[in-house]
């Protein structure tokens, strides 16, 4: 029985890891071995050419062919800028609102909280139609500012709910004691409460960052060449070309997914909380 269970567990883990393993191995294969049948799992010749092709594409044919920088590095930079700025904003606003919602009597508090949550329930595709029109009118289409604002909003409800959850866990008595010692409410928040929630803030930031990094619909519709992020760039390469070179796609995907895997590992203790909006505490 025990052996049977062990084999079953190994099998499930293997099925789960295989697609990621396949992405890693494909990214190091030559074009011929990518399409070899039966597939080669370990016994292939390792090449780094795919990774080079992610950053430098070939322009021109025959003897005029030369390497020129591809759009990928720019997309990587765009993704990083938009992710970092929007995460900072979302977490800052979320921490402040989360504290206020956790500590103060606010008229219509639960309605407000559920209004905030409901903005996240909306399908991105429903929001993006009117936002597209608005951004065109306001000149925010295809700008960093537009994308940063949008991703901030996209993560704001999550950030508020997560931070309220973390704040709820800190006893009210902490700041009451501080205020007895002559701290103002604001000082008590900044010097007593905030340091207690650093771990929570970090976890919230990681989740916000991952969600902004992965986002596709808004980026597809609201960005063009200058601010295009990685997801629409990779998608464009696959969906718009015939005879896709899967080695290059795997290499680009791997570069893109690696940070997410690393950060997921770092917040693994908060995963449950993160995927349920802080409503279930792990």
């Amino acid at each position, binding site marked *: 029985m025990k052996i049977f269970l062990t084999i079953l567990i190994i099998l499930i883990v293997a099925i789960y890891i295989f697609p990621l393993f396949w992405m890693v191995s*494909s990214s190091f294969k030559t074009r011929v071995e990518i399409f070899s*049948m039966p597939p080669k799992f370990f016994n292939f010749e390792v090449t780094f050419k795919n990774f080079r092709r992610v950053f430098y594409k070939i322009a021109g044919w025959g003897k005029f062919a030369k390497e020129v920088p591809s759009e990928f590095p720019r997309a990587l930079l765009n993704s990083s800028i938009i992710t970092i700025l929007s995460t900072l904003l979302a977490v800052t606003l979320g921490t402040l*609102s989360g504290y206020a919602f956790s500590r103060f009597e606010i008229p219509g508090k639960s309605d407000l909280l559920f209004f905030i949550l409901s903005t996240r329930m909306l399908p991105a595709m429903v929001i993006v*139609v009117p936002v597209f029109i608005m951004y065109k009118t306001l000149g925010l289409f295809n700008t960093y500012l537009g994308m940063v604002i949008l991703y901030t909003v996209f993560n704001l409800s999550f950030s508020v709910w997560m931070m309220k959850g973390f704040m709820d866990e800190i006893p009210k008595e902490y700041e009451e004691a501080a205020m007895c010692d002559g701290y103002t409410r604001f000082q008590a*928040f900044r010097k007593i409460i905030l340091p207690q929630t650093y771990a929570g803030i970090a976890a919230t930031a990681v989740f916000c960052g991952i969600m902004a990094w992965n986002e596709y619909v808004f980026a597809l519709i609201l960005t063009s060449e200058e601010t295009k992020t990685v997801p629409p760039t990779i998608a464009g390469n696959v969906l718009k070309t015939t005879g896709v070179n899967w080695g290059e796609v795997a290499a680009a995907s791997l570069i893109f997914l690696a940070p997410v895997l690393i950060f997921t590992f770092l917040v*693994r203790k908060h995963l449950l909380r993160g995927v349920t909006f802080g409503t*279930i505490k*792990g």
Partner: protein
Amino acid sequence: MKTKMLSDRGIALLFILPTILILVFIVVYPLIWSLFLSFTDYSVVGTEKPHFIGIKNFANILKDEYIWLHFQNTAKYVIMAIAIQFFLGLGIALLLNREFAGRGILLTLVLSPMMLSPIVVGLFWRYILDANWGVLNYFTSLIGLPKIAWLGEKEMAMYALVIVDTWMWTPFMILISLAGLSAVPKELYEAAEVDRASTWFKFRHITLPLIAPLLLVGLLFRTMDAFRMFDLAWGLTQGGPGTATSTISIALYRMAFQNFETGKACAFAYIILILIIGMSNIYIRFLNRLQKRGG
């Protein structure tokens, strides 16, 4: 410092107002604008000003069999994917709910797919599912099955979408189920053991009632997410072949950004929105009750 003067009320306002304002600016205001457009024949690529055409957009959409097809596709996908993920997630959680070497790292690996970018996952699975050089067909051929054109045949494309979605999202149900299982007091099992209760009896009468509320939360989360899913299907099949895997989000995308029927798309978006509001109401009420109970 000026903030020293602020009362609790002032701080509450100062801390909450920016959040509310930015949400109103980016979410509420555009929604009001698109409500107006949904009663017009506006197109973003046209030069004409919007003309008021009454409820024609709504009527056309509700009459359209083609759009009805997208609702059917969505329902088919949601029901299949959610049902499989629910049972598989619970099953795997029961299996993993024990101590063994390397559990932490293995669990993180198994759970990681749900954190990945759905579009990139969809795109890469095209390669895995390819009829000729896809590695999945290689594995199935080892046990004697014929080659399957996963993404080329209408029937199969829907199954392919469900398979990839299941790979990506079963971890969510595993995570939820594990949280439920770890919260069941061990004493209950010990007491049942004294009475020589069967494994099934223990599962049915101790485990299940205790984890049911959590499982329901998981189901609701997944249903809402699956209902509005776009990225994964777009990456994997772009709704094809034909309209076999075209969900309502894909139909909306094509209407708004390929045919540029902006007014009609706004009306369609509103119909979806009403459905979502109905669903999320049930869901929010449930979360509310759960939170009250949890304190």
